[in-house]
């Protein structure tokens, strides 16, 4: 099968398979998916893929959309803008592909954006957090809430809930971490808090002792931690090891079962929020199905990817039911004008800027588990 796929790829590259016949009504509806499935950020991309695959199976097991099956084309972009652009071209040259999910980081998503836009393929990214991402063109959507809408929540968490006056913010050095840290700093200062340290943590860094010593000397009342879970777990371990007991607040990426596993007892007491809470009875069906298939709990990223493809498939269904031709343009309009959709991570209702505003729940880590705060 691998070999067949390889030869199919070669044929495509040679341009032999590109002049497709008009899609038959019984043909599967093609959906593109791209994310980092290998390399540095593969752990996130893998979460996306698992959910999208689960969704694909569930839809097809239920008879597809209006009797037509869906077929997701999975591609690995290695978080490289170059690969993302090539994948976008591949999608643009795949007849009948009307919707794409991806990618994880904004840069990979945006490298694909111009090509997908030109091909009139709507794109929903589960997690691109750059403030300008959906502004690129009317074809870009996302599932995560824009950071400036979350900043007041962060300030509330740090200043009101954790009673912080002097706050340290070590942040992850990517577009998400940088935006979050800067906006949160402004929001904290607006509420009368003081940010005594704001410093980036390099991706894949593991040694935080210099930073920990610095934080220890500054003696803040609260540490706000917009850092992905792998680096964050090493950070909190080294922080606690140094005898620093300062309370920690964090945004949603730490609501991840893997974080609990990695950080162990040092994760105790961290206060955070999430838009996806696995113990919520409303998401039980999904959590059970995911656990049965992959033998681990879903995290927020899996849930966001599930909602991303769900939004697209709903739009495709709307287009089919309306009797309009199934084109990327019509799917885009259907996504933009879709009624509020209750997903796993909250309500998706795109505003004029193609942004969502999802509600978050405060949770705290107690006895090695997330519980409602």
């Amino acid at each position, binding site marked *: 099968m*691998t*070999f067949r*796929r390889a*030869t*199919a*790829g070669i044929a495509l*590259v*040679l*341009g032999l398979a*590109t002049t497709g016949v008009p899609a038959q009504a019984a043909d599967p509806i093609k959906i593109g998916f791209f994310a980092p*499935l*290998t*390399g540095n950020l*593969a*752990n996130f*991309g*893998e979460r996306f893929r698992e959910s999208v695959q689960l969704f694909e199976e569930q839809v097809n097991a239920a008879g597809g959309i209006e009797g037509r099956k869906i077929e997701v084309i*999975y*591609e*690995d972009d290695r978080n*490289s*803008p*170059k690969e993302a*652009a*090539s994948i976008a*071209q*591949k999608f*643009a*040259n795949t007849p009948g592909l009307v919707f794409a999910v991806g990618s994880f980081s904004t840069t990979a998503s*945006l*490298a694909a954006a111009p*090509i997908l836009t*030109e091909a009139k393929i709507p794109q929903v990214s589960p997690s691109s957090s*750059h403030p*300008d991402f959906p502004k*690129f063109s009317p074809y870009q959507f996302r599932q995560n809430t824009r950071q400036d809408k979350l900043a007041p929540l962060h300030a509330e968490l740090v200043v009101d809930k954790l009673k912080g006056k002097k706050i340290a913010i070590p942040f992850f050095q*990517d*577009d998400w*971490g*940088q*935006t979050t840290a800067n906006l949160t700093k402004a929001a904290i200062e607006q509420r009368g808090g003081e940010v005594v340290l704001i*410093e*980036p943590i*390099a991706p*894949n*860094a*593991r*040694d*935080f*002792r*210099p*930073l920990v*010593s*610095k934080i220890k000397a500054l003696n803040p009342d609260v540490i706000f931690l917009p850092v992905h879970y*792998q680096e964050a777990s090493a950070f909190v*371990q080294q922080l606690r*090891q140094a*005898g620093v007991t300062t309370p920690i607040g964090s945004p949603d990426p730490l609501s991840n079962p*893997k974080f609990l596993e*990695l950080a162990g007892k040092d994760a105790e007491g961290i206060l955070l929020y999430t838009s996806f809470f696995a113990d919520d009875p409303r998401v039980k069906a999904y959590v059970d199905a995911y656990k049965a298939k992959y033998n681990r709990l879903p995290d927020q990223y899996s849930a966001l990817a599930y909602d991303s493809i769900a939004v697209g498939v709903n739009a495709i269904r709307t287009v089919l039911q309306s009797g309009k031709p199934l084109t990327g343009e019509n799917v885009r309009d259907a996504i933009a004008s879709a009624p509020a959709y209750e997903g796993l991570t909250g309500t998706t209702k795109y505003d004029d800027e193609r942004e969502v505003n999802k509600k978050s729940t405060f949770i705290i880590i107690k006895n090695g588990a997330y519980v409602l705060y």
Partner: protein
Amino acid sequence: MELFLSQILNGLAIGQVYALIALGFSLVFGVANIINFAQGALFMLGAFIAYSAIAWFGLPLVPAAAVSVVIVAILGLLLERIALRPLIGAPYVAPFLSTLAISTIIDQSAEIVWSPESQPFPASISSTTFFIGNAYITVTDLVIFGFGAAATVALTLFVSFTWTGRALRATAQDASAAAQLGIRTDVMRQIAFGLAGALGALSGILVALYFQSVFPQMGIPFGLKGFAAALLGGLASIPGAVVGGLLLGIGETLASAYVGDSYRDAIAFTLLLLMLLVRPNGLLGGGRLDALGGAGAAAGAMPTTSLLASSSSQQSALRAYYLPPWGFLAVGAAFALVPLVVSSTYVLQALIYGFIFALLSASTSLVSGSVGILSIGQAAFFGVGAYAVGVFARPYGLPADATLAIAIGLTALVAVVAAIPLLKLTGHTAALGTLAIGQIGFLVFLNWVSVTRGPMGILNIPHPVLELLGGLRFATTEQKYWLVLGFAAVALVIAERYVSSPIGRVWRAIREDRLAALAAGLPVRRYILLAFAVSGALAGLAGGLFAYVQQVVSPESFTVETSILVLTMAVLGGLGNLTGAALAGFALAILPEFLRGFAEWRMIVYGLLLLVALRVRPQGLLGAR
């Protein structure tokens, strides 16, 4: 003051970790004279095998560690046997590439076996921490320190006082002389690789204990630090590796403490480069390195071992195939017809990347092949070009003629400045110096937020407009295809003219024997700087075109992986052979698209293809020139 002391202690703690990793490099470098890029992969495997032994088979820590050390040592032996032995007698760079290919295969296999996730390491030594005021040290630190010291002492004793150790050193100093005295140098090489594997596994396990987690991508960041430490201390010196590791640890900890955590690595690599300016042999690297052809410059003692030494002796036997300068125009003209036949923008996009990487690979071949300074930092120059376009195109509204000219000029300038610390270095030391340059470039892109916008990247780069052609705008994929093809073909013609001219001959003379070139009255340094300027100009053009094609510039495109990929292309094409470099660059850039069907096995297949290609044509596809 107390903070300062506690930071020094922190630096020592991480420094000993680096020292352990550096030991593995030094050993292999000393004996086999090979930069073993797979050392990082062996290090990662050591940690993961110990992890599996504990988590899956329930072994206690010590037996698990022993199992892992033995397995990885055997893997080290196999690595030598499979990937390096067949390449004895091949050009110097072939084994280097071979270790790269192996490391790609191992890293990707680990992601498949253990999933890309971090795993908590299921054993720990002790969570006790001793406090001295605000400073602290943990029991784990002490244990690692104990192991590191014990390993160093044992290794030193072994190398100094046993017969095997002496034979190892003899092989390191002069392999052919040692062979004539009856030493089985092939066995010695194997022993060195086995030992390096064991050391790698040991340091991997200790690092896993230190950070309490393992992840499949851990080989690269720690491997880079290991290189830096080994280079700082003096390659091939055992005490040097330890001193280098500790100094690196302290230096970067202080940088993190007083400048900022994001500048940590940038400062560490800058210090390394500055140190190389003063002491090209490293702190404790002595004359032994000269015997290995590692250090020295035209001004100093310099043996005649160049990167291609063994290939030049074969040159009469192995023909190099290359195009005349106008040949690039002919090929370009043929490619210009493709969009008339093929309508798929997917194919065109893949070809565009092929052209850009052909250019980049040629720029690498110029310094690495023609002048013989192996460049593992070309991505930095590529990035400068891309950022030049990113910064000037939208805010200043400049047309593409202007931005590309800026990209070319600026990158040439940056390349010349970057080459200054390299002038005194040769061989592997120079290669590792370029690695540092590449890292510094990447870190500048990431951290100089006011200009590069850091991790946010520069978005919405406008479509290129050429004012010289009456404001011609290149908006569609086809139009960009012609733009890139045109620039690439012309640039390659110019580069090939350089290489075939008397200037190119001087470059090759410098590569073959720097001392002889100097003695013949050639201004060696000026010619090296010229080579970097031309190479930088090519890379800058490639970067500028890349920015226009991509419309997004962000640091991810300019990592060490890109540098390594580009060097791979240059070597595979045949060093110094621009035609070969362009062909290999083109082929390797579009190859991943062909391999998409292999899904997560893609990079493994890629690595295997590389190994096979090296085995069949160690002197490069079209032959070194």
